[in-house]
């Protein structure tokens, strides 16, 4: 059964590590719905999160093929209760005062912030589950959306579960 999975990967922060990963995804025919990357609190370690869709067999291969890469330190499929957050910036054309008021109401409903105001444009910042952002964008699609930028989903398990790195150990 095809299902949406959010996978976090801890990697060594080396040049081209992202290329290695995305090139592997492309070569093996895995589709990435979204991707986000950033440094972590551990020096030299970055964290990438992917949203991928696939059946169990595909997801198992995604994990195994990721693990095969030398610079990949840890792969976790967030299967339990998890937090998922994405951030988006959206610039919308506004014509009259009426539109301005409507847009503000939509923003409030989604707890989006207006982060920039111009004569004929408003820019919103919204965070939340990717599905919420989808719905926000859908609402806005009735207006003149000029630009959108989404970060891709970030994920973390709820509660006390954490992704641990094994202690560095000398291999022979």
């Amino acid at each position: 059964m095809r299902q949406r999975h959010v996978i976090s990967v801890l990697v060594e922060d080396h040049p081209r590590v992202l290329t290695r990963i995305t090139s592997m995804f492309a070569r093996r025919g895995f589709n990435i719905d979204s991707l986000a990357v950033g440094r972590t609190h551990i020096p030299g370690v970055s964290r990438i999160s992917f949203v991928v869709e696939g059946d169990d067999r595909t997801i198992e291969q995604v994990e195994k093929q990721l693990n095969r890469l030398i610079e990949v330190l840890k792969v976790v499929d967030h299967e339990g209760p998890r937090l998922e957050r994405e951030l988006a910036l959206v610039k919308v054309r506004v014509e009259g005062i009426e539109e301005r008021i409507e847009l503000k109401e939509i923003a409030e409903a989604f707890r989006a912030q207006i982060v920039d105001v111009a004569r004929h444009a408003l820019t919103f910042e919204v965070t939340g589950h990717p599905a919420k952002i989808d719905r926000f964008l859908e609402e806005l699609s009735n207006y003149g959306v000029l630009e959108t930028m989404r970060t891709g989903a970030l994920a973390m398990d709820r509660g006390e579960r954490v992704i641990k790195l094994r202690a560095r150990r000398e291999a022979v």
Partner: protein
Amino acid sequence: MTGAEVLLEALVREGVEVLFGHPGGAIMPVYDALYHRRELRHILTRHEQGAGHAATAYARASGRVGVVLATSGPGALNLTTPLADAMMDATPLVAITGQVPTTAVGTDAFQEADVTGVTMPITKHNYLVTDVNDLPRIVKEAFHIARTGRPGPVLIDLPKDVQNDTFTGSFPEAVDLPGYRPTYKGHPRQIERALAALRAAERPVLMVGGGAQHAADPIRRFVERTGIPTIATLHGLGVVAADDPRFLGMPGMHGTVAANRAIHEADLILGIGLRFDDRVTGDVARFAPNLKTLIHVNIDPADIGKVIEAQIPVVGDAAWVAERLADGAERLRIDPWWRRIRHWQAEYPLPFPEDDVLRSQAVIKAFGEATGGEALVTTGVGQHQMFAAQFYPVKHPRSFLTSGGLGTMGFGLPAAIGAQVARPEETVILFDGDGSFQMTLQELATVTKYRLPVKIVLLNNGFLGMVRQWQDLFYEDRYSEVFLADSNPDFVKLAEAYGIPAFRVERPEELGAAVERTLGEAGPVLAEFRVRAEEGVFPMIPAGGSTEDMITEPPEEARS
């Protein structure tokens, strides 16, 4: 020390004795340093592809890491085929390529190519060195990665300025790769389960692949103790001796009827060091339809469950796991199963007509008999390759070197060079096709230069025979662009032009003397056999088919 000297010192510390390569501008500091290091033997090939395949065969024949050197741009790009080949066939290789100076990288400099970018999907890992002090660590890691886990090629791209930079660092004693820890010891619980399943099986078979070549001793012990029917993939040939009574031959597209039928009816397959590629399985949905238990032993977890679901996955080293299996196994009570198998073997041997026509099968068989299966064999790709796999009775592990995963025509001659360098005392026989041979024949010069006594058996059918066979069977005899005979060189003169003795054989009655003459030469020799062009490799399971679609003998009209 300069970067170039550091590189060579690091190679020596890894136990490297032989390098294969071809110089050029961006790798000249390394070649200059090499001039002073007599303990490193360099084999100069005439093309980097030749160096790459030679290093591959050297690695597979010796069990060590093959090392290849090339310059930047065109030199490095000529290595792409051998790298992909080594990646597919899990061969430990370290490639060192020159690169334009770090200051010029990214400017489209002379002979610049993004070699780490290009080779990313065809190497196990690669490095671009930007600081000379990282070099010893990188070399150490490269060798570790190449030889451990599922072995594979690792490339080190070394800019020219880094080769000249002064080294102020130190040589590490150990590697520290937190993201890379292959599992060697199979889980004891899984091994227990495997042994229990084996005891319960009625129709078990053992399948071994290239990943079992280093595990021949324990596997032979296991086969001896259990009496299990044993099948070897193209890369598994030699793990069990071809004349072992438990050996059924090769599976898959050109496998024996007995091997394929046994897989078809098996209720248990113990697969060690293989990955069930499509030439073995055909249509995966119809592969081994009676299978209840697959015990899949592989060091690479990604190869387990990739094609066929394994009920008992065992992640671990083939030799380690096979030792445990051999220790724990007992004789299998499978007489009825053996009777069935013996029946297929009797009904479908691998026959060919013994008449007045010279055939590749007979040539290979004659060499097999004359050498007792003891030679180190390399091949090109095509019909001759499959005939060699079917008819050469490989006796020892690491002795049948062929391009399986990538199917690289032109592999054979450079591979024979690498094999002979690795095992100078042994007889190396290259079974090559006229098409394959012409893809890398410039390496005849390398044979001459180093006086390598390789025996080149050229099975000249005047065609791209394997393609012709497919046209025969699946394209209604439309022989599109497969005819070579009108423009093939005089191979005898060609070899002689390189200083290699050569002769031609056209009649079957000359075969015995020709084999004797070939094997009797102290140095290299090329024996050209003018073999029948219309011959087909059978049995054959068409691509994407299953055992039920097996064509066991040539269609009527092709037989005469």
